[in-house]
């Protein structure tokens, strides 16, 4: 059976986007109130321009105005006009500068979009085209060329590492990350991206090592938050929690800059049972959330009635796809949830969670097997040995009656150390292997595996997995008209399902329809 197997505990791990979009989202700015800018005069350039009007003095004034951030002087306008009237003496760059001065004069640039993606797509066909057209290889090639020309640019190395991560080329990605860290050991973008990479590669100690090594760590809320998240994955308490609390209390940073930090510490307080302290921090975090803190809040609210939240009410959050996808999913809005998964994936393409949720929705709820398979294939590129993705793709091929394909992925599954998997993962794999066996007309093994799965789910008192396994098994029994089908029909009919698990309700109802048809 296909599953989501959502993490037991979500942490506020930094999201890793390409540099361009990280900039647009505003995670790299610095609004520390301790610093103030220098005042710059452009009087000399104005006097020169007034005394001697030529392209040189006009350019001089435009440069001065642009650097000084002054736009509202008559002389500047007359210099702009002069340059535009003398195109035979002006360079393209100078003309662009005059346009930029005009833009700054008329507006302050504010990103009002709620979605910033490398590519936006509306259909699964477009998504498949995106995956298959070798765009990625072209981008990698271009980025590699940039690293050769821009020897000291750590940002290009990080972007290259991210691209390698998308393809699952972990060694190459790590080399690029290490070069970036060597060039910029204190840079927030580099450190947060590196942390995300090392967590992805399960090298948690390395993530902490580079964070600790940075002199920016103690005073940067974005880095402290990354340190807390990494420590939490490792089951440790970050020694920086105190510093984090001090920063939040000091109000030296904007609400947006401390949103991840506040929700990281708030989540820890919540897990410790200090609801009052947690709530205060969560409220601070939601003053100006980003996509990550909003998704964390949505996740916390799923099991805590005192923390109800409507993610759709936060209009200013850019790329809130994770929170939206889960909210849609919880409410049974499968299509919306699916498209938000796609957007979430396009936003953070090496992350497996949007793929797992999206492929589950497509394969088990929307019955769009090609879409589910396409998603799993893409996810396996970056996470080639992920048992849930392998399980789900086997399920989708099996339910599409493509048994041959199933066996090639089962071979990949065998390469994983199955004993290291969680009990939940094992239960799912047992059910899926049971499905493959039944579809391959090996009823004996199929029955045995499904029953094992149901039994093991019962042992760990996981009603959701137990019921999901029963429902799937019953469907297969009916489809193959196997002797035990009547027994399981009754079990399904009498099954008590948690109404909040709308996916299970939906799948169970489908099987009940099948039972009714079979009874006729």
């Amino acid at each position, binding site marked *: 059976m296909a599953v989501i197997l959502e993490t037991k505990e979500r942490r506020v791990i930094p999201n890793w986007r390409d540099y361009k979009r990280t900039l647009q989202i505003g995670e790299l700015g610095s609004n520390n109130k301790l610093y103030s800018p220098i005042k710059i005069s452009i009087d*000399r350039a104005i006097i020169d321009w007034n005394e001697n009007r030529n392209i040189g003095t006009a350019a001089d004034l435009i440069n001065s105005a642009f650097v000084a951030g002054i736009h509202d002087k008559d002389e500047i306008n007359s210099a702009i006009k002069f340059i535009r009237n003398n195109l035979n003496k002006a360079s393209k760059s100078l003309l662009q500068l005059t346009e930029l001065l005009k833009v700054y004069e008329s507006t302050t640039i504010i990103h009002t979009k709620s979605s910033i993606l490398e590519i936006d797509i509306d259909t699964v066909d477009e998504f498949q085209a995106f995956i298959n057209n070798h765009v990625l290889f072209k981008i990698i090639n271009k980025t590699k060329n940039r690293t050769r020309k821009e020897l000291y640019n750590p940002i290009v190395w990080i972007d290259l590492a991210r691209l390698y991560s998308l393809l699952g080329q972990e060694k190459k990605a790590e080399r690029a990350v290490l070069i970036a860290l060597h060039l910029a050991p204190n840079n927030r973008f580099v450190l947060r991206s590196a942390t995300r990479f090392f967590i992805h590669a399960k090298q948690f100690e390395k993530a902490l090592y580079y964070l600790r090594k940075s002199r920016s760590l103690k005073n940067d809320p974005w880095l402290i938050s990354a340190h807390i998240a990494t420590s939490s994955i490792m089951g440790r308490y970050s020694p920086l929690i105190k510093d984090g609390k001090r920063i939040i209390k000091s109000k030296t940073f904007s609400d947006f800059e401390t949103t991840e930090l506040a929700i990281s510490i708030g989540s820890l307080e919540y897990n410790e049972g200090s609801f009052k302290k947690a709530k205060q921090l969560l409220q601070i975090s939601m003053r100006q959330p980003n996509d990550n803190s909003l998704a964390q809040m949505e996740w916390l609210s799923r099991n805590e009635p005192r923390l109800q939240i409507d993610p759709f009410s936060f209009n200013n959050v850019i790329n809130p796809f994770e929170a939206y996808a889960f909210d849609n999913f919880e409410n049974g809005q499968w299509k919306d949830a699916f498209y938000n998964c796609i957007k979430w994936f396009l936003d953070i393409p090496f992350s497996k969670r949007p793929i797992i949720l999206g492929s589950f929705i497509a394969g088990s709820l929307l019955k769009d097997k090609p879409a589910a398979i396409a998603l799993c294939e893409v996810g396996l590129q970056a996470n080639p040995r992920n048992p849930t993705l392998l399980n789900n793709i086997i399920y989708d091929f099996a339910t599409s009656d493509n048994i041959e394909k199933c066996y090639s992925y089962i071979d990949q599954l065998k390469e994983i150390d199955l004993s290291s998997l969680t009990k939940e993962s094992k239960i799912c794999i047992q059910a899926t292997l049971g499905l493959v066996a039944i579809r391959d007309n090996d009823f004996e093994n199929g029955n045995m595996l499904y029953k094992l799965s149901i039994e093991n789910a019962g042992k760990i008192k996981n009603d959701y997995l137990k019921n999901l396994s029963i429902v799937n098994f019953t469907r297969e029994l009916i489809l193959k008209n196997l002797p035990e089908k009547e027994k399981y029909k009754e079990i399904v009919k009498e099954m008590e399902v948690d109404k909040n698990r709308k996916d299970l309700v939906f799948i169970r109802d489908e099987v009940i329809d099948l039972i009714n048809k079979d009874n006729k």
Partner: protein
Amino acid sequence: MNKSTDNAANALEGRLLNDRWLVTKKVEPKPGATGGFFSVCYLVEDKKKVAFLKALNFQAFFQLFSGKSVVEIINEQTKAFKYERDLLLKCKNRRLSKVTMILDEGEEYIDGFTIANVPYLIFEMADGDVRSHLNFCKDIEIAWKLNSLHDVAVGLRQLHSINIGHQDLKPSNVLLFQKGILSKIGDLGRSLCGDIDAPHENGGNFPGEFTYAPPEYLYRFKEPDWNKRVRSTDMYLFGSLIVFYFTGINMTALISKNIDPQFKWDKWRGAFSDVTDYLVDGFYKAIKEFKSALSNTELADELGFIVEYCCFPYPEKRGHPTAISQIGNQYDFQRPITRFDVLAKKATYMFK
């Protein structure tokens, strides 16, 4: 006598100075002169040539700093004037060929004024500054631009050789002589000297005009090592001048143009060290943009390389890559001088 007429600096016309220079005409301050407001300028002539006189205008200081004590103002401005004069004399003694020459200096006593002494400096007369000669359209006057930049690089090296850093190199301070054939660096008013204390040194702040300043100054970073600070600043300003010659934009504006507005110095509220990597990213884009302003790819690569090592956003990485490892030689101008010499010669037939 009222305030406006009680100004000896305005009364020089017609006087013979040092028994040689006849003051013929009052003019506007010469292009780009530091403290134009604080000077009264004249044309002067001897039997051979016309020259340019800059007289110190005490009255202007009193107008501008009315709250300050007279003693304080006179002391400060006298120091500044004396400093500039000493530097210019130092340059004159060493016969620096690519730095504007001081021809004479002195102090004229004019009876009947509250402050009767008028200190003055007499400079060789320039045709104008480089801004009047530039055309930023692609491929225009490449050979001339390269020759002029060669002169400027030589001028900077000459200054460095006598322990002076110009610190205010900008288009208005590149003066043209001999109908534009010769370029010289002018205005040492904001220069720093290793041997003489500058009144404007101000604890490592940028002494020149901030709209041309290297990025580190805009983000309030002060390099403690005097030599490194002064020499790397001149190197940046020279690279920035190259970019201005071909695009009409200085490097500071070009980097600003290629970074996200949140990193611009007037928006950024963090330390310089935290913004440098974003400046580096913008800098590489700026280099690309600069190179695209030149049609000839060979020239674009040559100049792009020079600008890259002159203007790197932080001082440590400035200087020719080979020179960086040579102690005391990192910010030497010999390499760009040699390249500009070769390029200027090539330009006459190759980059037409």
